[in-house]
């Protein structure tokens, strides 16, 4: 019966996030054709679709975790027959689903478009995948930070830090040996360096979510 309540809580969050999910997906999809253009227009498009993903992550943690706590609707949720750990599982799962729908949709569109294109400009696919995983890791980090610290100040610091990390990432990673120059190739090159980068990002996601659930399970006070 409790598994079904966790499912209901996930469904509840997805219902409340529905416009956010749709908005991020539509904004990202609208920005993609622009980002494929040459020069400044292309850069603006790139910034727009990265903003769509980043803003989605920020809204999900601020609205879904922080506002639920501050507005005291958390009291209502925790009065339901669930344990605080089950609440955290539902919250993490709902946030992940809400993030991964636009994230996955945009990633699939980028990869699909590149593969379908003739001649194939596929060389940038590995870096785009790595960048998308970086943004996923940023989201997981923010989610963990809010669930663990419950602090608005830490949330703001986390948002600033992860946002500053994106331009730094875009400057550093494409210049790394084994990755540099590959984006201009017609075929995707999955070098050990790019695979390691993606692997580290995926590990950060797992570690952040695991830490969030671990801390929640050991916590004594939930309000």
């Amino acid at each position, binding site marked *: 019966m*409790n598994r079904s309540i966790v499912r209901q809580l996930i469904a*509840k969050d997805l219902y409340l996030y529905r416009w956010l999910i749709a908005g991020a997906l539509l904004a990202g999809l609208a920005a993609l054709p622009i980002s494929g253009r040459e020069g400044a227009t292309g850069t603006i498009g790139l910034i727009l679709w990265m903003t769509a993903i980043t803003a989605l992550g920020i809204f999900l943690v601020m609205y879904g975790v922080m506002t639920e706590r501050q*507005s005291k*609707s958390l009291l*209502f949720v925790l009065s339901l027959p669930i344990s605080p750990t089950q609440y955290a599982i539902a919250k993490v799962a709902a946030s992940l689903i809400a993030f991964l729908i636009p994230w996955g949709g945009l990633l699939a569109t980028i990869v699909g478009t590149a593969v379908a294109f003739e001649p194939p400009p596929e060389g940038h696919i590995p870096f785009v995948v790595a960048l998308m995983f970086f943004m996923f890791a940023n989201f997981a980090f923010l989610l963990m930070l809010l669930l663990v610290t419950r602090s608005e100040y830490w949330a703001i610091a986390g948002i600033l830090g992860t946002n500053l990390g994106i331009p730094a990432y875009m400057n550093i990673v494409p210049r790394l040996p084994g990755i540099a120059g590959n984006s201009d190739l017609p075929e995707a090159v999955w070098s050990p360096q790019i695979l390691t980068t993606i692997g580290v990002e995926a590990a950060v996601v797992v570690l952040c979510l695991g830490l969030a659930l671990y801390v929640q399970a050991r916590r004594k006070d939930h309000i």
Partner: protein
Amino acid sequence: MNVPAIEFEGVRKSYKFFALDGISFRLEQGQIMGFVGPNGAGKTTSIRILMALIQQDAGEVRVLGHAMPREQVAAKWDVGFVSDDMRLFGSATLAWHMSFVKSIYPSWDDDYAKQLLKRFYLHPEQQIKSLSTGERVKALLLLVLARRPRLLVLDEPTAGLDPVARHEAIAELMEVLKDDDRSILFSSHNTLDVEQISDQITFIDRGRIVESDDKEAFLDRWRRLALDVPESARLHEPRGVTEVTRSGHTAVVTANAYSPELEAIYTQAGATVRDVRRMTLEEIFVATVTHNRKERGE
């Protein structure tokens, strides 16, 4: 044998500037307990421990026979909780909330929910953020009452309401509760609300339970005596008297264990008993808290 609806035994919880100091009380099934205390007395902390929102440092808490917080999931199936600062989801409608709660509790009673909607003048299609404070409290009450919990825990549910909305909410609550055999813990610092609704009263102050008794017993044993006292007469405080205040030739005696013998004692001391009157719950509450603080030297 019926297990008590709520049992607190030696419950402690410490914060930097406040501590629940080993509180114990018990609410039998079918009883309505008013849990009364000034702001910051420990009512909300106790209720949050009761609802497993926070965990006690020491002591035992059982809700409908379930040890808290360990068996909180089993306990919460039968507990309806409404608190002053609880909020619903502002962007969703009341109808959505009703359907959400219904999807969780098989005990949800559709007909009863419809009756409550009518009685509370609520519109299911209304968004929660457009409800007034009074309507929000009624919406919360509807969501817990329509699933027919065995125990209702109400933490200052009328605190933010204006007098009219408060009167309406209490009247509706009393009407709703008339037909049911529910246990209720009703926390408030408003003694008028508590007096209307409760049949047991527990006073809490500065993290300690200072009195717990049947409401009628409280009202029966507390009296205020007005005395005319000659200057030469010396008034002492016999057993059962919590306070004697003297001003010139008059004195007021507050007693927490009144008996006619008390009048005789003061008459023998040379005083004339001008008036003996029952006290309101608010007067009893203030006298209890003041007396208790004085005894503890606070």
